[in-house]
């Protein structure tokens, strides 16, 4: 699971309703892997408005990566920024581990690189 996917996942347990706690999910016991990929600046820039930057920042700190506080102006010209973003959201993969909701403590497992976000019908 690339970290860009994590930026799209929110806790959806029925009684878990505090939006400040449901997202981003906190990583627990994760096994990370760097897999090199070709950088595509046009795609990265197009993706920027679709990302939740504060959540990405929180996760980067948690995992010990460094991203700027906010998206710089003219990001398409900022090589260092684009490289850091590319490395973090597209080249960093979670192989195994879990994601925990800060609100309800529900734990979502990641197995063989795929997050299991399925809840039992009564939890939805």
């Amino acid at each position, binding site marked *: 699971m690339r970290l860009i996917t994590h930026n799209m996942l929110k806790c959806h347990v029925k009684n878990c309703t505090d939006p400040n706690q449901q997202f981003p999910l906190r990583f627990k016991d994760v096994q990370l892997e760097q897999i090199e990929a070709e950088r595509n600046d046009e795609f990265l820039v197009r993706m920027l408005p679709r990302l939740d930057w504060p959540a990405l920042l929180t996760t980067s700190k948690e995992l010990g990566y460094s991203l700027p506080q906010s998206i710089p102006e003219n990001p398409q010209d900022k090589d260092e920024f684009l490289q850091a973003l590319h490395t973090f959201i597209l080249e960093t993969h979670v192989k195994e581990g879990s994601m925990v909701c800060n609100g309800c403590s529900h734990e979502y497992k990641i197995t063989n690189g*795929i997050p299991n976000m399925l809840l039992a019908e009564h939890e939805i």
Partner: protein
Amino acid sequence: MGLPTPDTSHLRDPRFASVYEPAEDTYLLLDALENDLPRLHAQRPTICVEIGSGSGCVSTFLGQVLTPHASLIISTDINPAATQATRQTTGRSGGAAVFAQCHTRFVQALEPRLQGNVDVLVFNPPYVVTPEEEVGSMGEAAAWAGGKDGRAVVDRLLPRVAALLAPGGVFYLVVIEENRPDEIIHLMAAQGLVGERVLERRAGRERLSILRFTKGD
């Protein structure tokens, strides 16, 4: 048609026994996507989502259709074996797409973040008319059991589609005649989505169609 059908030979592995293998409905959807290549390139999608990706054949093909443009293609399935199969199929494809898989029902857990962000949504739902009690499994039957009129599953998604789509976003849906496609087009029009039947084919007893819905800019 010019683009190769994705390699899904690994589905022979017994651990993928519960995964729906590409069939006529799959191929019709691939043809519809390939016919829309100029349109999809002009649209330049950033986020695509396939619900119920099964083998991963369609997600992979979509990535090929969009290349050289890069796009994040998120594939979901309720069957964990299908998400693993999709991971292998997409992993074998070259091209510019970035693939992601998620084991979930429809787009649950992704939905809040994907609201208004999905440029291309694809769903080949369980459309076969079956007794209602066959609906809701997480194994093989999840790929085809559609309950009354074959609409039990798809009707849960349809009311949410307009909100998921980005401005100018498109939604491709596989249907058979028993699903009453004209009624679906009518229902979606109430959400402001313009629908049309873009492709039709008879496969055995099934009269398959691909519906395409577009959200205004």
